[in-house]
């Protein structure tokens, strides 16, 4: 058996895939450490503080110091807690947050699993994320975590509905549920990206521009609600629920919850990038400068992807710093009475354009 055969066989495939998955997980974890630092810096900047600046140059190593602090502390499990569920909940949050990254295309061809229902897979996994929170809230056997868990369950289920419809508009434009296809469809400059209607704007196509721009804004707001970020951080509203579902958690389980939460936030940033901002595509076509398919082209594409994800992460961080928290009934009203009808209308408009638009062009 030669080497080439081995890598094409089932065992070789398994080893390669595990290696790729590990590379993605480690990459995401390390970048999370710095994004968390960036989040705190942005937050501090808005409030005219300095933020973390002691550990390492510019405080860059702060997240690692926090990591060791969390890991070295004692794990406290409340006496009345349901022990297995209490410990499974943070693990579930953590695992699900990283499962989704399997289908994210980072650069042309750089994706662990290029499946046909990629966007649906992302949606399914993110809809499972609610279990970590609701299980943690229930298993703590305490009132504040329970209320926080219930709140977050209702909130995440509500916003998933409109999120699904927004995703459908993008799927209609791309004509595919494969994430790489969705990105490839947006090739050729920023005017072809989905947040400006995905190209073909001449004539009747101009109708796509306001609709898709609105969809991008709604996706951003729904993503804030889906990840329990301020101004929608009602599950952990410290002024009402102390810290919601996390009250009884300490040490490593808490750390897992926090990493899972931030991994989900970065995942949402990656999703906005892929769905609306052209994924790895460069804003100005660069095919004439560098030949597609070369390593340099791939690395520059990866660079564009990272730049866009960081941009959206900064948007998330700024929203946390400058927007006051919503009240619960206002949150539900926004989800069910504003976003759901608007996204339904958008689906109808985009679908109608895709079917009949060609007749008038």
């Amino acid at each position, binding site marked *: 058996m030669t080497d080439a055969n081995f890598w094409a066989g089932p065992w070789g495939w398994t080893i390669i895939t595990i290696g790729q998955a590990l590379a993605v997980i480690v990459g995401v974890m390390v970048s999370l450490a710095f994004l968390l630092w960036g989040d705190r810096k942005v937050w501090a900047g808005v409030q005219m503080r300095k933020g973390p600046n002691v550990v390492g140059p510019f405080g860059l190593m702060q997240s690692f110091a926090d990591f060791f602090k969390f890991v070295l502390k004692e794990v406290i499990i409340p006496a009345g807690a349901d022990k297995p*569920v209490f410990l499974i909940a943070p693990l579930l949050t953590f695992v699900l947050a990283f499962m989704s990254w399997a289908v994210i295309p980072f650069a042309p061809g750089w994706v662990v699993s290029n499946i046909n229902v990629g966007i649906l897979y992302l949606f*399914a996994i993110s809809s499972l994320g609610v279990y970590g929170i609701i299980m943690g809230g229930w298993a703590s056997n305490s009132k504040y975590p329970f209320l926080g868990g*219930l709140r977050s*369950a209702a909130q995440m289920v509500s916003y*998933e509905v409109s999120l*699904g419809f927004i995703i459908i508009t993008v799927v209609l434009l791309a004509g595919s549920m494969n994430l790489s296809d969705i990105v490839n469809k947006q090739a050729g400059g920023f005017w072809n990206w989905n947040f400006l209607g995905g190209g073909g704007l001449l004539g009747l196509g101009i109708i796509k521009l306001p609709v898709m721009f609105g969809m991008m804004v709604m996706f951003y707001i729904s993503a804030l609600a889906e990840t329990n970020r301020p101004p929608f951080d009602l599950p952990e509203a410290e002024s009402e629920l102390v810290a919601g579902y996390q009250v009884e958690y300490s040490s490593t389980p808490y750390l897992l919850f926090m990493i899972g939460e931030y991994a989900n936030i970065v995942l949402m940033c990656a999703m906005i990038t892929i769905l609306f901002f052209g994924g790895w595509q460069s804003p100005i076509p660069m095919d004439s400068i560098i030949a597609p398919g070369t390593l340099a082209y791939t690395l520059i594409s990866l660079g564009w992807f990272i730049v866009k994800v960081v941009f959206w992460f900064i948007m998330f961080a700024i929203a946390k710093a400058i927007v006051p928290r919503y009240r619960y009934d206002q949150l539900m009203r926004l989800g069910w009475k504003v976003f759901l009808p608007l996204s339904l209308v958008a689906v109808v408009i985009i679908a109608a354009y895709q079917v009949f638009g060609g007749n008038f062009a």
Partner: protein
Amino acid sequence: MLAIAFYILAAVTVVSGALVITARNPVHSVLFLILAFFSAAGLFVLMGAEFLAMLLVVVYVGAVAVLFLFVVMMLDVDFTKLRQGFANYLPIGMVVGILLLIELIMISSAVAQRGAAAGQSPQVYDAEMSNIEAIGRVLYTDYVYVFQAAGLVLLVAMIGAIVLTLQHRTYVKRQDIHTQVTRRRKDAVAIVKVKTGEGIKE
């Protein structure tokens, strides 16, 4: 490889299905039910029906089971009370259970003899066609009227649920965002010159 995955997923499905009915704590039951749903979705993926698998996860695990969990957590279930009526309901439960078992055996034997398990795979339009396209083609051409009728049934069920639970309580103060936003300064504020010693008359 495929066989190993199948046996693991099938075993998890069956074991968690059994634990759903034997678990003492109803919340644990729902959690095992979710595990059963999830591994059933895994079985769908093994069969190449990835679209159905994702739908199963999104609809049942992501929405329906969350509501189950929601309700079960809120209910204060009293186990001793629940066990008291056990003997009374046993005969009816047995009858329903046996009927379901017979139906399941009939269906599975039919599948084994004439269905997919006997090597007669269902009609395939095009080998290149993806799951979603195949399902969409069948749903919106051959079965379009039945599909729409199913939608109507769901709509009726939804309206029924709303009618049953909706109550107009006039004494509850509600926030009307539109009136709040459209309110202007002159609607709310009036500058009055107050004479000393008289105050403002209503």
